[in-house]
């Protein structure tokens, strides 16, 4: 009853102070919810990408003598399985072939058989290079070793049995050989074995015919595996949960089969790596978001503290009237609860609305229960503390029984006396310097291993820096304003003219409130600036990364037999295409190592794809291409190749290329002219870049296997058009840059930051506007009386406005100056520290000028709006004078 009476009155007559606090809490909760939503979706995205990148989820090797049907049943029971296929392996002593009078023999190898529909469920296991897929297939390397091609005969040297002869139907590449031939059941610490070079793939019936006897005679030389694809829809979206789910299922299976089979959990391993990355992503995004959340909390506290004076007076009155401390705190808690509950509810509703409409945030996944609860509790706590802490602090004074009433001289706050801002900045510098001295290697991504080892300490530097800058802003602002010196007068002079001395005197008395306004505006702008710059730089690099993987906006991937270049004219004439350039993709032996070779026209390739200076070592992209154009037999090689062959500029290096005329590898001399670190579509391994004319001349084939295209507008639209143009040739693959999934050291950059950008930057703008405008508006409320008096002694409305404009100008100038500097430096620090994440690392910060201009404009606009709305009208003055 008492509480109801009180809270009804507060809501009816003091609605603004409750609404203000609720708004601050709503902002905090909305930001937190939005971030949780983004993280959940990012996690789901990472899981989905990881899962789609694993060709074979599980490989279950049936122990010799065990019943495959039982193992298959156990498999189906242990996990949600979508498809299971049988794969048979047989060790062979070697392969032999006769070509052109000579006999080639290989060392030991493998004969593999997939069951009937294997390739429809696991299409990524085999990539056709020449010939057909119907019949016996031979691995690229093996074909090269034996000098055979489609139509040639190969003799299989079985173990302990006479050899059999087969005819080659096609030459293939085995992209997933590492997993396909892994030794299932090895302990995880064991070093991964290299896959065999010599592989033949036989149709199932042929394999059974040839190797069933070998299996009977030498069971240790054959193996049967069940390759399983799990029902990915059944996996939890969050990487950690997905990992737990899959590994639990694996253990379940192992328990069920107990000794009858061994399990290689490819999916689990990949998810384990993604789990690390997901954690890293969470930390990174939390770091980017934490300033915003801190700011929202500070804003809430600022709003509630603005009403604190009146609440304190009410509480003193309540005490006089005989209210117990408990009652006083409960009344305050009631007000707090109303604000907190309303704010939390509104915040969550706002976040879900945001999820529905935010562009780029493909919110397919919602926030899970525990996280939602956490966010709600946080919002409620913020509200309660904001109201109760001052009330409790005042009440404590009273209960100190023998309190002697002393009048303290107001001291500078403790942190200022301790120079905490300086200490924080110095510490930030030290941590940063330490990271810099190790070459910013905070993300260790050994090549080929899809896992990250993160140095979380690296985040300490920018965090300390941000905090130190905030405190420094407060110190400098307070000093400048309170000193009431020439600098202050200079700042307010543009709007106050002759009244500048009076205005600055008035402002210097309100240094505390103005400083808080400046600090909060600065923090908002700093948050917006640092996040925007980081996101923009990040997105730019992610785009470059995708471009590298895909090659260009749209790439048509063909083979030597079915080159995409044959359709160059048709593709180039598409209206959506700005440019279409051919590129050769061949293979060449560098010593015994088979590397990808790309043949380009250096003059024209730049039309279809961007080549960054970072791709090449020691020279700019333009310079390197010019040199290649000038050297017809020039070749760019990888760093590793230079080391292996101790190459000097201009050295001749012999590469063995396959001649189209006789399908044989012949040595071709090239001149080493430079190092290429990256190249469109090139793999992580060593590769070669040369002039397509020279390659065509020396191999007798000018076929361009790839076509790179630049889109006028939307790459996806161009890709669709290209696909439709090429429908008569299904062996050509059309990919656009958006689809580029890539497996690099960290799947972190696979996460689409577009959603994060939208969330954080939207909030930054709102909070920057709120911080400036709200602080100003609340301050005006307390100056009604002085303004009424000034009007009474002859101040014109324009002159009254000068006081307001001066405050607004001060907050704007101070906030933007400190904010932009702090934001820029924080972003620079963050980008430098995360150099390892970017691949290739950014050359410079990408600054979103338009966005920063928009933020600045909106902040200025809200300040102007606050000033305009606070100017007193004549009618108002009369009413207020009655109070005097």
């Amino acid at each position, binding site marked *: 009853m008492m509480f109801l009476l009180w809270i009804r009155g507060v809501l009816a007559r003091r609605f603004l102070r409750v609404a203000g606090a609720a708004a601050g809490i709503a902002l905090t909760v909305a930001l937190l919810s939005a971030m949780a939503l983004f993280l959940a979706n990012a996690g789901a995205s990472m899981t989905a990408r990881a899962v789609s990148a694993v060709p074979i989820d599980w490989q279950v090797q049936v122990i010799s003598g065990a019943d495959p049907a039982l193992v298959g049943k156990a498999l189906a029971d242990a996990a949600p399985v979508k498809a299971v296929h049988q794969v048979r392996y047989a060790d062979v002593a070697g392969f032999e072939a006769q070509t052109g009078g000579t006999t080639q023999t290989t060392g030991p190898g493998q004969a593999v058989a997939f069951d009937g529909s294997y390739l429809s469920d696991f299409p990524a296991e085999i990539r056709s290079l020449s010939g057909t897929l119907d019949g016996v297939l031979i691995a690229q390397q093996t074909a090269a070793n034996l000098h055979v091609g489609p139509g040639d005969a190969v003799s299989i040297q079985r173990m302990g049995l006479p050899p059999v002869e087969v005819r080659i139907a096609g030459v293939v590449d085995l992209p997933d050989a590492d997993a396909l031939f892994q030794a299932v059941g090895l302990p995880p610490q064991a070093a991964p074995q290299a896959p065999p070079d010599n592989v033949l793939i036989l149709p199932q019936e042929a394999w059974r015919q040839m190797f069933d006897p070998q299996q009977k005679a030498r069971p240790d030389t054959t193996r049967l595996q069940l390759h399983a694809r799990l029902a990915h829809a059944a996996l939890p979206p969050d990487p950690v949960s997905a990992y737990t789910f899959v590994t639990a299922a694996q253990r379940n299976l192992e328990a069920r089969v107990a000794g009858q089979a061994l399990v290689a959990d490819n999916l689990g391993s990949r998810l384990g790596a993604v789990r690390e990355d997901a954690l890293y992503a969470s930390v990174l995004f939390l770091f980017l978001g934490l300033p915003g959340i801190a700011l929202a909390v500070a804003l809430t506290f600022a709003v509630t503290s603005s009403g604190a004076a009146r609440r304190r007076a009410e509480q003193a009155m309540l005490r006089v009237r005989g209210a*117990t*401390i408990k009652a006083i705190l409960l009344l305050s808690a009631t007000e707090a609860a109303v604000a907190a509950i309303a704010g939390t509810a509104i915040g969550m509703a706002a976040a879900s609305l945001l999820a529905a409409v935010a562009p780029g945030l493909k919110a397919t996944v919602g926030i899970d229960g525990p996280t939602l609860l956490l966010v709600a509790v946080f919002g409620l706590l913020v509200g309660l503390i904001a109201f109760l802490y001052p009330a409790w602090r005042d009440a404590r004074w009273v209960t100190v029984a023998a309190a*002697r009433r002393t009048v303290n001289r107001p001291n500078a706050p403790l942190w200022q006396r301790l120079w905490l801002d300086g200490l924080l900045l110095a510490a930030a510098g030290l941590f940063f310097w330490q990271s810099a001295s190790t070459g910013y290697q905070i993300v260790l991504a050994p090549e080929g291993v899809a896992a990250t080892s993160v140095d979380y300490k690296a985040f300490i530097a920018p965090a300390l820096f941000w905090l130190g800058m905030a405190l420094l802003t407060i110190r400098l602002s307070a000093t400048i304003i309170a000193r009431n010196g020439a600098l202050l007068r200079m700042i307010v002079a543009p709007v106050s003219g002759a009244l500048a001395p009076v205005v600055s005197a008035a402002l210097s008395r309100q240094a505390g409130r103005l400083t808080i306004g400046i600090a909060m505006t600065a923090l908002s702008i700093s948050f917006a600036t640092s996040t925007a710059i980081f996101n923009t730089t990040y997105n730019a690099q992610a785009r470059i990364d995708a471009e590298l993987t895909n090659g260009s906006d749209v790439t048509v991937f063909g083979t030597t037999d079915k080159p995409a270049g044959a359709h160059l004219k048709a593709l180039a004439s598409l209206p959506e295409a700005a440019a279409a350039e051919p590129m050769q993709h061949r293979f060449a032996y560098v010593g015994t190592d088979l590397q990808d070779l790309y043949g380009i026209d250096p003059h024209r390739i730049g039309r279809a794809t961007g080549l960054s200076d970072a791709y090449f070592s020691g020279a700019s992209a333009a310079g390197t291409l010019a040199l290649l154009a000038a050297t017809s037999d020039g070749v760019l090689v990888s760093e590793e190749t230079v080391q292996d062959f101790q190459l000097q500029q201009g050295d001749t290096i012999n590469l063995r290329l396959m001649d189209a005329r006789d399908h044989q590898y012949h040595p071709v001399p090239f001149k080493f002219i430079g190092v290429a670190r990256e190249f469109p579509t090139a793999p992580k391994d060593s590769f070669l870049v040369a002039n397509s004319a020279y390659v065509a001349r020396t191999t007798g084939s000018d076929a361009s296997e790839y076509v790179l295209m630049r889109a006028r507008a939307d790459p996806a639209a161009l890709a669709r058009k290209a696909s439709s143009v090429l429908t008569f040739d299904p062996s050509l693959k059309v990919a656009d840059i958006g689809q580029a999934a890539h497996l690099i050291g960290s799947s972190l950059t696979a996460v689409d930051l577009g959603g994060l950008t939208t969330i954080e930057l939207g909030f930054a703008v709102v909070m920057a506007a709120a911080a400036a405008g709200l602080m100003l508006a609340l301050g005006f409320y307390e100056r009604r009386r002085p303004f009424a008096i000034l009007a009474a002694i002859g101040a014109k409305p324009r002159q009254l406005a000068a006081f307001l404009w001066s405050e607004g100008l001060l907050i704007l100038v101070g906030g933007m100056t400190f904010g932009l500097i702090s934001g820029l430096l924080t972003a620079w620090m963050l980008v430098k520290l995360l150099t390892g994440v970017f691949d290739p690392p950014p050359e410079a910060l990408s600054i979103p000028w338009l966005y920063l201009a928009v933020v600045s404009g909106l902040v200025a606009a809200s300040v102007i709006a606050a000033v305009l709305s606070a100017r007193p009208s004549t009618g108002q003055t009369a009413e207020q004078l009655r109070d005097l």
Partner: protein
Amino acid sequence: MHALDAHEIYRFFHIGDDETAALRGVSFHVAAGEIVALVGPSGSGKSTLLACVTGLDEPDGGFVEVAGVRLTRRPEAHRTRVRAASFGILLQSGNLFGHLNVEQNLRLQMLLARKPDDKRIAGLLESVGLSHRARAFPTELSGGETARAGLAVALAADPPILIADEPTAEVDGDTESRLIAHFEARRDAGLATLLATHSKALAQRADRIIRLKDGRIDRG
């Protein structure tokens, strides 16, 4: 045993390094059915003394008893209870909560003293001449109406002792007379009233005058 007993009250304050004695051994009492006026120049310690006898402040020496119940050197909860039950407090200004209207202010006071009685509200309002202003909010009241509303709130819980600190300082003669009439009605009803005041008119209507000077009772 009197309604209010104060014995040898001492109160010191520290401002920086200086120590000032606001009260130096003040003893007095207020009996039921009388009006006592506390007079003295500014700085004589009137407000401090009132704070001490109502339990809002803890004296450094001496004790205070309300109807024989010790108030000083007791837990805050006890002092609050006694204050709510025994005292009606009327200050110079700031007697009303701005977000509650007159009627709600009265009701709140009753709830705080745990003596809710809606029927009394109408009578109270009538006795201070504010029946027509029951729903008005404090910002809408004139100076005199505010003072009368404050008195109604102070009397809302029917306290045995009324404490008033400069109740007529900001009001006109007419309102002052009405307030005085209330105080006298209280006295006739056997209730106690303690006033601190500058006003000679008010002091003259008291049964006893206690003069404070420099923290001591001035018998001269």
